[in-house]
């Protein structure tokens, strides 16, 4: 397990390889469909301080407010590929070092990871209670009223959030490898 403290430098991120297991510590931002469309189209400046050299987490959490403070109840990853049209540009625009979600992403993102010096981190889908327990503090939330709870951008501080590097900054993607192998088996089974 490789310990990662956020924010993280480009040179440290470039050391990571597909298959590395990491433990994340520090402040990151959640953002999913609405957030990515917003960042892509409007490039809001207010997000720069929360995204530079850190991780954007594709997650729409369940949250609870107790005594005016937000708490994360369940917070697993959502499917990342929906952000494929936007992610590459967003990575470069904001200097993001890690994109975390599930399912992996496509060629455009893989290329941006390579150009910017970033990685794709895969969190276990459906393990939301454990993942929410790693969120030690919610520092704030952006666009809550307009986007709603799942789509808002939550500024969270995590401790020992575990993930696996499945796309690195050197052009490697575990998802591409698995797909190529399973395509071959599927074609044989189907007989095409």
């Amino acid at each position, binding site marked *: 397990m490789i310990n990662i403290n956020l924010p993280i430098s480009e040179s440290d991120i470039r050391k990571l390889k597909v298959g590395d297991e990491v433990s994340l510590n520090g402040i990151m931002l959640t953002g999913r469909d609405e957030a990515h469309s917003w960042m892509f189209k409007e490039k809001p400046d207010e997000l720069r301080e929360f995204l530079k050299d850190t991780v954007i987490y594709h*997650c729409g959490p*369940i949250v609870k407010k107790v005594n005016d403070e937000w708490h994360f109840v*369940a917070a697993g990853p959502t499917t990342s590929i929906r952000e494929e049209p936007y992610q590459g540009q967003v990575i470069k625009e904001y200097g993001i070092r890690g994109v975390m979600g599930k399912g992996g992403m496509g060629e455009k993102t893989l290329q941006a990871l390579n150009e910017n010096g970033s990685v794709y981190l895969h969190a*276990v889908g*459906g393990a939301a*209670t454990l993942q929410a327990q790693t969120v030690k503090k919610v520092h704030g939330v952006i666009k809550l009223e307009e986007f*709603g709870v*799942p789509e808002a951008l939550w500024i969270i501080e995590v401790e020992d959030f575990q993930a696996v590097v499945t796309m690195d900054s050197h052009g490697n993607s575990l998802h591409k490898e*698995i797909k190529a192998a399973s395509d071959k088996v599927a074609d044989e089974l189907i007989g095409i």
Partner: protein
Amino acid sequence: MSFKFDVNRFSIAVTELIRKVATELPTDVVQAMETARDNEEKGSPANSVLSYMLQNVNVAKENSTPICQDTGTNIYFITIPEGVSLRKIESAIVDATRVATEKTYLRPNAVDSVTGKNSGDNTGIMAPYFHYEEWDEPTIKVELMLKGGGCENVSDQYKLPDSRLKADRNLDGVYKCIIDAINNAQGLGCAPGVAGIGIGGDRASGMIIAKKQLFRKLTDKNPDPELEKLENRLYTDLNKLGIGPMGFGGLTTMLGVKIGAAHRLPASFFVSLAYSCWADRRNTMLYTESEVSYD
């Protein structure tokens, strides 16, 4: 015979049903996951991912918090005795849904498709949504499934024949469609998944048949020997794809394959796949005038 229906009591029972479905994975699914974990090589990504999922299942149950933050589409299949008011049932379930959202058993998950606004309480047009049947028992049966968006997005529908897949209008054609669909899904639907398959019907009823299959226990046996054969063949072959838990590679791509069929038009031959993620959240409540049970 008239069933005495107490709206308040029913609503409380449904709130408990929602809590159970969101926070407790059915025993048969847990057992299938444990078997899968033990089959995967020690120290492999597949083995550690399955262990992590099972650890999450335990903690979620202990803490009564959702297994997955995506508490999905709330799909109800309701069977009623003659004479019970559907409007009263729906209104009680809508109330229970609001309470369950407030208690954070459910994430606010209903978005107005026109305005983009989240209703905030999981209610709206066809949210939650209901299917009804009637029976002779003095019991209301409520089957609830929380079906997440990731696995709904990789669900699919084919029509036969399909020239790309060289798939004809027969069970072998069905087999080819499902191999193709699960391969396309990769890890995106949170593998290992359960395949609910509907053969025939129209585009809507075929998918309803597919979704209904997801209520079957993984250990049950299809009463139709032809479908049972196809279920076994698909289960074995889909697990040869090597996609594995979360698409990290491994021996376990599917936990189960369940198939149902409906009559079709001579002109149509639909194959519908309802993919459920490993967090196959379902429960059945039996509600009588004096008792409530869950399974």
